[in-house]
């Protein structure tokens, strides 16, 4: 009873404001502390994830750098993270350009599918595909990344023409791909996203011989977020 009497007294507005401010301050301090403490690890994790994905789709890559399409050319991105308008260029140990890793994003069976595929412009060859994010049905739609046969179809696929997904077993042309039985829609969505991304990017890619050069900037070297990839990383094997 006495407690509730206490409550009934109106605290001054100053107290309200002050307590909010103090709480805000303390919480700000705590948050920045945890942020700093985990900052590097998280950055590493993210970079590794991206790296692994790029590795999967572009074999023999040792370095990569993020590019934007600006003013009709590809320029090197400065941003830490990754966004939809980015494309990745892969380089071998010598820093020689190998190919691009292109993102695709769009509606799947259930929700948005986000994927990455490798592309060698000079050979017009698709080198592999990886799903970054999807909420497709477990057991059905998730075969787009679990079914190795399906994933394998995008390795060394010649991109002369838009890809077409056909019912499993009825593949009769080079540009066709066997869809997954029971997940035809997801497979078709994957193909559709790839075609769309390909159409978006292929005219923008630098013409033969003028591939973006790998630049080891000061920033990239210094920070752990560098787009540089440690060649010793065991994950390299994935691409094969």
């Amino acid at each position, binding site marked *: 009873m006495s407690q509730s009497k206490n409550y009934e007294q109106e605290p001054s507005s100053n107290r309200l404001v002050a307590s*909010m401010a103090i709480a805000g301050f303390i919480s700000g301090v705590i948050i920045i502390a945890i*942020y700093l403490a985990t900052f590097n*690890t998280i950055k590493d*994790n993210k970079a590794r994830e991206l790296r692994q994905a790029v590795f999967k789709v572009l074999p023999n890559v040792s370095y990569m750098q993020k590019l934007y399409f600006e003013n009709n050319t590809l320029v090197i991105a400065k941003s830490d993270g990754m966004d939809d308008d980015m494309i990745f260029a892969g380089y071998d140990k010598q820093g020689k350009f190998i190919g691009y890793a292109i993102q695709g994003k769009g509606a799947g069976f259930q929700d948005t599918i986000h994927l990455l595929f490798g592309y060698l412009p000079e050979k017009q060859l698709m080198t592999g595909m990886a799903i970054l994010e999807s909420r497709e049905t*477990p057991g059905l739609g998730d075969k787009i990344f679990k079914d190795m046969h399906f994933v394998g179809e995008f390795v060394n696929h010649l991109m002369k023409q838009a890809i077409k997904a056909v019912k499993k077993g009825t593949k009769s042309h080079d540009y066709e791909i066997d869809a997954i039985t029971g997940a035809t829609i997801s497979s078709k969505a994957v193909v559709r996203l790839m075609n769309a991304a390909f159409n978006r990017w292929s005219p923008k890619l630098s013409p033969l011989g003028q591939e973006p050069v790998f630049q080891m900037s000061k920033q990239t070297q210094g920070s752990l977020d560098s787009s540089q990839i440690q060649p010793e990383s065991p994950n390299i094997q994935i691409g094969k």
Partner: protein
Amino acid sequence: MATDASAYEEMLKGLWRENPTFVQVLGMCPMLAVTNSATNALVMGLATLFVLVGSSLLVSSFKRWIPKQVRISLYIIIIATFVTVVDYSLLALVPAIHKELGAFIPLIVANCMILGRQEAFASKHSIKYAVMDAIGMSLGFLIALLALGSVREILGSGSLFNVDLFGANFEPWVIMILPPGGFLTLGLLLLFFNWFTERRKQFLLKVAQADQSVAIVGVKDNG
């Protein structure tokens, strides 16, 4: 001694008698959203435990200085701070699981159970009781999460904590890991819980009656 026992009581009540899921029906969103595997459930449960215990500790320590008008806002700031801590920690430590839990780690902030405990308990009790209560509640929540997660993972994927249980020929019940499965499983679990409580009540009643008749017979014998 006595206070220890009652603090212990406070903890125990969260496990069954005032179980946040089965009795209070709070925090349903994370409960259903992340229980498609036992591992996710476990991580979510532990994260919630951390946030609840931490914020209860803070709230009960500072309860004197919190003005009534902004108390909810302050609780939210406190809780959100802890959640941010958990969020970043998980992201750093177990990125794969963090990815699966998705938005539901930040959403711990909105779990009514946590705010509820601050209002209903931590703001009115001493630190010790508040913490014990928080532990009990979050353990109760964890138990429910695990129960739900296990059932859904066992049926839905044929495994538990990612350990395959039935071999390759098992036909998984896909729906269990889909949204309807969450609702249905929790509904049926709750049903079972109700049934069990009811049965227990009736059983206790019967025992009590039996006792009584024994007592009466005893009196008669004596007389």
